[in-house]
């Protein structure tokens, strides 16, 4: 396994493919997600972006190819194994735990750092009580970070859409991931809210967490990304810095179109 060529803490994807019925959603894709930068994946609808995220978080198993994180082979592992390795994500279609309070959602996000030992759980030992207090305090910190701390004890289903989007991010961050996948965090948000998400992404990136952003909002993508990967029909079309991709004629022609080329030139 040639993990030596990949820098420490990076996610390495090698010749990964995934099909649904007859459709090749991801076709022989290879790339690296380098530690500590903001990485974006763009492409039109149907390019395979969400499929790729699902593959890289263990929700789907690749039909072929390998996925390795920090040299450890995670190919075919279940999602909780990806989470245990330090990979977190949010969902395009919100998957909030509506039957819990806001803070309980975030506390659940810390599950990989919590203990599920049998006897402490059944007897609610002092050790477990202490761990629970700690979990709650850390959860409150993340809620504060995302501006949700005064809704901490509200039921999750009472929150408006924008707040739920931020709740999912808080939940994912609570697990202290090394890589955080954000699947269309700005979907359904207006320009102001999207800009807030952009600022948030930069704040999180500053803590050293690697971010992989899947987005349609080009202003957001170009504003925060260190590296951009463009997908086309499940294949890698082009990759590079935001500027390189923005000016690549193939990308402009196929995906950004005339309007976006103008917008990208002015952004």
């Amino acid at each position, binding site marked *: 396994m040639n993990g030596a060529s990949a820098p420490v803490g990076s996610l390495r994807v090698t010749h990964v493919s995934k099909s649904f019925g007859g459709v090749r959603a991801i076709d022989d894709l290879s790339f690296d997600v380098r530690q500590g930068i903001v990485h974006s994946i763009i492409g039109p609808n149907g390019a395979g972006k969400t499929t790729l995220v699902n593959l890289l978080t263990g929700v789907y198993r690749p039909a072929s190819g390998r996925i390795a994180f920090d040299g450890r082979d995670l190919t075919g592992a279940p999602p909780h194994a990806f989470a*245990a390795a330090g990979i977190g994500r949010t969902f395009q279609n919100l998957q909030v735990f509506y039957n819990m309070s806001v803070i309980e959602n975030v506390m659940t996000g810390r599950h990989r750092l919590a203990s599920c030992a049998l006897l402490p759980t059944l007897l609610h030992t002092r050790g477990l009580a202490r761990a629970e207090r700690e979990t709650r305090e850390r959860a409150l910190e993340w809620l504060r970070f995302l501006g949700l701390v005064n809704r901490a004890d509200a039921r999750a289903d009472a929150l408006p859409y924008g707040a739920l989007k931020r709740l999912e991010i808080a939940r994912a961050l609570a697990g202290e991931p090394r890589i955080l996948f954000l699947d269309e965090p700005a979907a359904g948000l207006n320009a102001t809210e999207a800009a807030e998400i952009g600022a948030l992404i930069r704040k999180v990136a500053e803590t050293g967490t690697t971010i992989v952003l899947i987005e349609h909002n080009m202003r957001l993508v170009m504003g925060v990304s260190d590296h951009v990967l463009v997908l086309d029909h499940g294949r890698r079309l082009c990759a590079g810095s935001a500027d390189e991709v923005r000016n690549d004629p193939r990308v402009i022609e196929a995906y950004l179109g005339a309007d976006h080329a103008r917008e990208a030139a002015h952004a």
Partner: protein
Amino acid sequence: MDSLVHSAANASSRATLAGALTARTRLVAALALVIASLPLVIANDYFYDVAITVALNAIVCIGLNLLIGYAGQISLGHAGFFALGGYGTALVATRYGWPTLAAFVAAVAAVALLAFIVGRPILRLKGHYLAMATLGLGIIVSIVISTEDRITGGPDGMQVPALAIGGLVVQGERAWYWIAGGALVAATWVASNLIDSPTGRALRALHTSEIAAEVAGIDSARHKLFVFVVSAAFAAVAGGFAALHAGFITPAKASFFHSIELVTMVVFGGMASTGGAIVGAAVLTVLPQVLTVFHDYEMIVFGGLLMATMIFLPRGVVPTLYGMLASRTRS
């Protein structure tokens, strides 16, 4: 600035945690109070017998509620675990001559092991398929118990020796009342602890979104299996005690209808509410006793109750009442 926010967060977490602590033990305390004071109003052995039956049904329902209400799974065959607890105790005590207490413990352990073995493949199924699989399992258990009459006494059932703890034979309704009551308090305490823990949150999480739970690091298969085994163990404990108390057990305890009765109690009393499970067990055990004419109409009432609850009060009686009270105090 940061330290100010930090101490404010601390204060809020202490306040709500204090509230949460009391909430977790509140139910146990209230229950213990009720059980301790009930003998003051109970007149005779018949009422003690009803109370014991309520307590044992409640133990099964608490476990079943963890599975159905919290983890969002379903079992239409839990009567099988109940009956196996009873038959296991009886068989180990009579055929192998073990002291009844040891036989009881062995039977519960054996049922937990069985649940562990069948649980893994069964819990890969969801929704209707899971319902059918648990149904099939329960019926197979009841058929085997009925058919292997040389071991189990067949459809007529078998005798169960009396429970002896440390050489002292447990006799009389009063003694059994304290045993059943104590077991109920213990079961409520364990269940409340489980709910208020990372495991409890994991179960509630996988009820709503198994994908999101997995992505948060929750091994959903392992957690489902865990709650399945715990609920089976609760059922076996109740079944073992029921058999020891009655001195007798029949295959009817493993029947499909008994499984449905148990699900009705959980569903009626309240999903995702331990208190609700106890209330459901109490109401639906006492009701047939109170309305003696009931017997001919038992199925109509049960069926109607099941349907009406799921259509009009899908969360069950206790959570709905709780919700109404909460909204009234807020306004």
